[in-house]
């Protein structure tokens, strides 16, 4: 079971365990909410407006008497969808751009690098607003724009790392041992950029959660019929001076999720890089440029 070593190392570090638990709880909640929530999240119950947390409503109700716990559970579906969707798109865009920018002949390589440098000037939120201005606000806009924004970030950080490793003797040694260029890519290059890439990706997924909440809050994201933590937060914060406790829940959910993704990413980075010993400065710890969500 040598292959599970890294998983054990993640679990062994306290922050990694916290990250795993948070991510698993969110994913499980999203799954459960498809079949069951304590109450129908959209059921309006005017008689029970702004109910305090209690047996009937664990986290209380909002201004139209909807159960906040049920709303949060339903909203976690959106969160998971956005984090995973944006993560997949960012991975695809990031790796393709990084590979194009590192492994192709010089003119192509430098062209790609310039394009990445230009794209990186656009903050994720701005990309999202531009896209939603044209096609209207929707979850897809959030996913695609965060995916593009973070894909470019990943490319920007992964490309020089790929170049650096490409010049290593062990890559040359791999070729001298008879590996084809593509075998060399999978065995030597990609595993060595993985630590840097994982940190970027987990950071990107965390920002995707934030961006969804932020964009929905601003009205560029989820349509009002879609359960979303951002929408819920926007709803509740209008009454923050009267019912401060209720705003706490969606805020807490967002904060914990972002923290969980980040800590999991850090622990994964540490676990996949055996050269990291405690105290030495790990590669790729610097936060990505142009994070403005």
């Amino acid at each position: 079971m040598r292959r599970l070593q890294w998983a054990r190392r993640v679990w062994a570090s306290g922050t990694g365990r916290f990250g795993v638990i948070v991510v698993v709880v969110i994913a499980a909640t999203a799954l459960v909410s498809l079949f069951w929530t304590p109450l129908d999240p959209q059921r309006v119950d005017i008689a029970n407006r702004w109910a305090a947390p209690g047996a009937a409503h664990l986290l209380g109700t909002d201004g139209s008497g909807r159960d906040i716990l049920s709303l949060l559970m339903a909203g976690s579906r959106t969160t998971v969808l956005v984090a995973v969707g944006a993560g997949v798109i960012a991975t695809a865009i990031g790796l393709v751009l990084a590979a194009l920018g590192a492994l192709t002949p010089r003119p192509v390589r430098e062209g790609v690098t310039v394009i990445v440098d230009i794209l990186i000037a656009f903050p994720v939120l701005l990309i999202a607003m531009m896209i939603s201005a044209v096609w209207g606000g929707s979850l897809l806009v959030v996913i695609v724009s965060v995916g593009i924004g973070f894909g470019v970030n990943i490319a920007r950080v992964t490309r020089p790392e790929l170049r650096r490793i490409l010049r290593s003797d062990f890559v040359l040694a791999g070729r001298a041992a008879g590996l084809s260029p593509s075998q060399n890519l999978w065995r030597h290059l990609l595993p060595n950029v993985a630590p840097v890439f994982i940190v970027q990706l987990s950071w990107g997924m965390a920002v995707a959660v934030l961006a969804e909440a932020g964009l929905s809050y601003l009205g560029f994201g989820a349509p009002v019929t879609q359960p979303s933590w951002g929408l819920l937060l926007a709803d509740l914060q209008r009454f923050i001076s009267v019912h401060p406790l209720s705003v706490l829940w969606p805020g807490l959910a967002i904060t914990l999720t972002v923290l969980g993704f980040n800590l999991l990413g850090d622990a994964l980075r540490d676990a996949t890089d055996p050269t990291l010993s405690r105290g030495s400065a790990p590669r790729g710890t610097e936060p990505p440029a142009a994070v403005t969500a």
Partner: protein
Amino acid sequence: MTLSITGLTIDIAGRRVVDGVDLEVADGARVGLIGESGSGKSLTALAVLGLLPDGARVGGSIRWEGRELIGMPDRDLARLRGDEIGMVFQEPQTALNPIRTVGRQIAESIRIHQRGVSRAEAWARAVEEARRVKLPDPEAIVRRYPHQLSGGQRQRVAIAMALACRPRLLIADEPTTALDVTIQAEILELLHHLVDEDGMSLVFITHDLAVLSQIATDAVVLESGHVAESGPLRMLLRSPASPVTQALLRDATATLWRPGGRA
């Protein structure tokens, strides 16, 4: 002749860095390729394996077992690399993948060319190879990562990887330069022993005539891409004809420190 290089030229970015190098390596011969930094030693070696950097242009002829290597498709060259021709690099620090255990790396170099070998078999053979290059406690050391090994141990791993498929020619590019003197002697002795055992040919690249004299029988002296002098090493040591060889000989003897003497 197993390896026969004639009139090799290499151009990089319009500059001729290797110009008309001839090198013959007979079956079981141990040939030194010696010269100062930038004289084209390493490029000559990389040209044999077809691993020159992008944009390098090669001319002349490199024949291995009667087959012309220059212009050979990369797929066919890849089949020779590691299987018929092995290579050891200068820096044991960077020549191993930092995130793979050394056992896995030795096992992989076996599996590249021997597809039928299972993971478990390859692992068992990796332990054997580790024992063969005299790594201490081979069963345990194969589970470790490169950064947990000393420089000399890492170079032994690199040698084990290069020889795992029993190549007929080993190209060693300054394999002892990055090591301290006592470890240097051990690695040289190991190479000597392994080359003898397998009846392999050896091309040994170095800038140090003293090191070369311990391992090679013949030598080719390079100076800025040209062959300055070549012949049996004994002859070169006794009556160096070219100024480069004389300088290399002076450098090699200058390192012998004598108490009370002056540098």
